[in-house]
């Protein structure tokens, strides 16, 4: 099943709108920062990874995403980069 980046952005925004009981009423788009804007913690990124795997029904190499995040001097990430990561791996021919 191919999903466009726009569809994936909608999926991610839908999940983060009410993430494990924490509601977020502001705009969520590709520029929204995971930590700075949404106020989420690093552990939320791990749990979001699992939530997305369940949502898409397949394993995704989130350890690569986490390690990339960990290497950044400013540890934050715009959702657009998460969407690009998902787009790349969801549309790869073999499950990651």
């Amino acid at each position, binding site marked *: 099943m191919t999903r466009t980046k726009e569809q994936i952005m909608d999926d991610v925004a839908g999940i983060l709108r009410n993430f*494990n009981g924490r509601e977020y009423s502001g705009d969520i788009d590709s520029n929204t920062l995971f*930590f*700075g804007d949404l*106020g*989420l*913690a*690093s*552990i*939320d*990124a*791990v*749990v979001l990874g*699992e939530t997305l795997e369940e949502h898409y029904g397949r394993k995704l190499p*989130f*350890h690569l995403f*986490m*390690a990339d*995040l*960990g*290497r950044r001097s400013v*540890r934050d990430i715009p959702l657009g980069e998460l969407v690009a990561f998902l787009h790349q791996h969801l549309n790869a021919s073999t499950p990651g």
Partner: protein
Amino acid sequence: MPRVTVEGMKFYYQQAGEGPDVVLLHGVTGNMAIWPLINLMPALAADFRVTAYDLRGHGYSDTPPTGYTSADMAGDLVKIQRALGLGPMYVLGHSFGGVIALHAALLYPDAVAGLILSDPYFPGLRHLETRVSEWSGWLEYKEQANRAGLEVTEEDWFDVGQLFKQTANLPPGRHEMFRKELGLAAMDRLTRLAATTCGDDVKAVAGLTEDRIRSVRHPALALFGDSSPFLATCRYLTENLANCRTALVPNAKHRAHEENPPAYVALVQKHLREMAGIAQPQRVGGAA
């Protein structure tokens, strides 16, 4: 979401790899996400079955009001080990996680195969650490706390409970300062711990006296930042534990795993392989 329940309490955990068991313990106010963030979990999963969980009161684990001493949390560790069917485990603990790891080796010697003590500070060895306020990073730490609207003094450097309470009672005018410096998530987790006995419990010796610390005979590695505030503890462990090696992470202070992740991961990998009798690859690395 993988959770393991022990005595009615839920702990969030992640597991990767196959092989001898390694369990990773974060420090107070942290969570298990640090291990995938620094790439330690995937690196170790090549040789070991690696389990990382959120301590009680942290991350996605439950937050009981009490029970945060190293003895209590060593109990959590072995109960989680049993519930997940893990064998004798190599335990890596950072900071208070290291105190929990050593306490587990003392209380449940057969459950633990070896220890990696990553920059721990032991309440039972507090008399060694009289010069923390002279530590090179002290001023930086103090300034960061001030920018976040908190006050730390040289007398209460070891009192995290103070920081929890100050955060929970931050005047509204200082919320923005805190958010800018440490982030909203930090405010949530310190406020959450302020409602528990964690702050007092982690200062408690809780039976882990100096005599009992030095009685531990498990294979151990004292792994400290080369500019750690706790190098007196590092020396003490090296000289007094029966079977303890030392490694210093270059260009690192108390949080060596975050300050120099590639060097930290490589050292942990090398020493865990040695402890477990796993051959080192020709070219040591995989962490860079």
